[in-house]
């Protein structure tokens, strides 16, 4: 799981280049099928994912490759893409209103405060929060990085009968 960060950087650079080219030639930011987020929103999404599942002693969402998995999801689902756009805009608005800065530029704890506000209530920000939390957790916690963190092996070949976690010779209730 060391490729995630450079993937992220590469994607970011691609977006910057594309946005620059689009601006130069007067193209709309999305062409053809509308299947991905525009660069500023994509950067905000990465910041959201990093806030939901940060690095600690173990890799977080970015290093586990979650952004790519979510891009694949958004490319498949125009409805989810619209929901993410509206939600990311709500997050950005709140960041500017309450912290006076773009969400992407906030320190991690300030980002957390912005997102906490969306855990309850109504509106596109809250709907987005619940979707992105589910989407991110589902992808992170089924990744090799999370499995390694938890010492979990998926049961592709089954598990041995002998209970592993404590003394197998002991009978229940003695």
């Amino acid at each position, binding site marked *: 799981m060391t490729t995630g960060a450079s993937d992220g950087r590469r994607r970011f650079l691609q977006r910057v280049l594309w946005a620059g080219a689009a601006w130069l030639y007067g193209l709309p930011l999305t062409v053809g099928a509308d299947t991905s987020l525009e660069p500023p929103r994509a950067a905000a999404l990465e910041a959201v994912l990093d*806030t*939901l*599942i*940060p690095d*600690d002693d*173990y890799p*977080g969402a970015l290093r586990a490759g979650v952004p790519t998995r979510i891009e694949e999801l958004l490319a498949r689902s125009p409805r989810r893409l619209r929901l993410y756009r509206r939600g990311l805009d709500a997050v950005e608005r709140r960041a500017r209103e309450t912290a006076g800065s773009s969400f992407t530029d906030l320190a991690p704890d300030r980002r*957390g405060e912005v*997102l906490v506000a969306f855990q309850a209530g109504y509106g596109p920000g809250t709907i987005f929060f619940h979707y992105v*939390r*589910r989407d991110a*957790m*589902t*992808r*992170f*916690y*089924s*990744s*090799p990085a*999370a*499995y390694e*963190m*938890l010492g*979990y092996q*998926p*049961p*592709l*070949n*089954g*598990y*041995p*009968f*002998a*209970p*592993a*976690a*404590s003394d*197998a010779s*002991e*009978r*229940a*209730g*003695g």
Partner: protein
Amino acid sequence: MAEPEYDAVVVGSGAGGGVAAMVLCEAGFKVLLLERGRRYDFTADYPMRHPDWERHGNPFVEASHETVKAEAGAELDRSRLGLFSGPGEPRRLRSGFRYRRVLGLGGTTLHYQGEAHRFADYAFRSASEYGFGVDWPIGYGDLEPYYNRVEQLLGVAGSPDNPFKPPRGAYPTPPHPFSPASRLVGRGAAALGLKMQHNPLVLPTRSVDGRSPCRHTGGCTRGCIFGAKSSMDVTAIPRAERTGRLTVVTEARVMQIEADASGSRVERVVYLHDGATRSARARVHILAAGAVETPRLLLYSRSAAHPHGLGNNEDQVGRHFMETVTVMLNVRYDHPLEAYRGPPIDARIWDRADPRSSLAGERGGYSLGVSSSMGGFHGPVSYALRTPGFGLEHKRAVRERFGRIVTLFGSAEQESQSGNRISLSDQSDSAGMPKVSVRTRFSEKDARAIEVMFRDCEALAEASGAVATLNRHSTYDRSNASQVAGSCRMGQSPEASVTDLWGRMHGIDNLYICDASVLAGQGAGDALSLTIQALAWRTAEEIVSRRRSG
């Protein structure tokens, strides 16, 4: 196209229909087995084949919305907070009945967790022994030989030394070792004077008929990727197919059971398949569609001789419906338990199952147990989604909890009541058949069972050193369809039952029921499938012997 003719038509391929089809085929009958769902291939279709299996949803299709009209449940007594699920504000109305049943070859056995219980002898005499429900027209002795045969068929793994069950010989395969969670809770139980027992399971610990033994994935509810769980599609149905006499039609929706003009014989079964209406004739017809769909089909099959539904001239079809009386406590331990491994329900406590063993003034008639699956915590994703919050704190909490949350549960029998019933509603499904209304009310005895089971589960949690209770769940305020039964119960008299003691419909010569509908009780909180299967085997044998004798 000529109407095909069979010796027997079986409607539904779950626990009862699968066994009945096998017994009839092996006795030389030409059988048509109609199944509403599709056929699943365990070598390809199930999510645990994938490393990221939690991203691959449960493959099984349920059709509650096509079966049950959405309606509010009963008003609840909010003065009895001890009965309610929590945390959260107690509900005013019970949740509407949701009928979670798998459509597919093998029926509910595709997703069941394989508990293989013989009902205790007293469970067949519950009215005369303790004034609860109704006595069965048969006893344990009538079913014992069939319990034996079904257990052999399914390779049940278990231990014979359970003092709370009738004496018996060895199980076909040895018991599973107790899981770490069951050993931990078992020690707490011992401190309370209760004894944890091996739960008999249709998860063979040794190879049976060349199939893989259980591989302890814990994935019983999502489809066993090794074909090790003895569901009907890998046991009884292949055996029936090997006779060359079984015709299986999947994605066949049965719409009518047509009787002749006299009303005393069924002539044909009408079903939808491949966009067309088809029919089949047989000498004998067997309904095995479950305790909701079987009465639904009967009530919808009206004729001049049966204006209120087939076999319903005494207004008994659909009555005495029983659902599930269960409590669950999701608790966390601070020991590594690897709760995601092994059979989902590997242990139960039967000390309180015999109602006569109950403490002064309190209701017995229930069993307790430990489950690694009931609470919805299984793989890493389920833990992450059910752990509140996000960020560093959340990630740390998931690490602390993973594999350490289990469910302590209690399971009782619902008191059989005439007014608890399945009836046709005013709303139709996409095929034009009326959906059912499900009316169930808990009796005071049922409510009391919930209180007592909660108390016992809380005591078990404390005695076994649980560090936290995450939530509690009871069927007092949330319906649960896992153990439904009784809606066409067997009995001596047509005024108080739907079938005779062989499962044959009163007054209709060639129509039998082989599913949970015929159960007169729920065996003091035991799982129903083994009894459904034993009854189906017995009914099928009776059909064979009647044909031979006449």
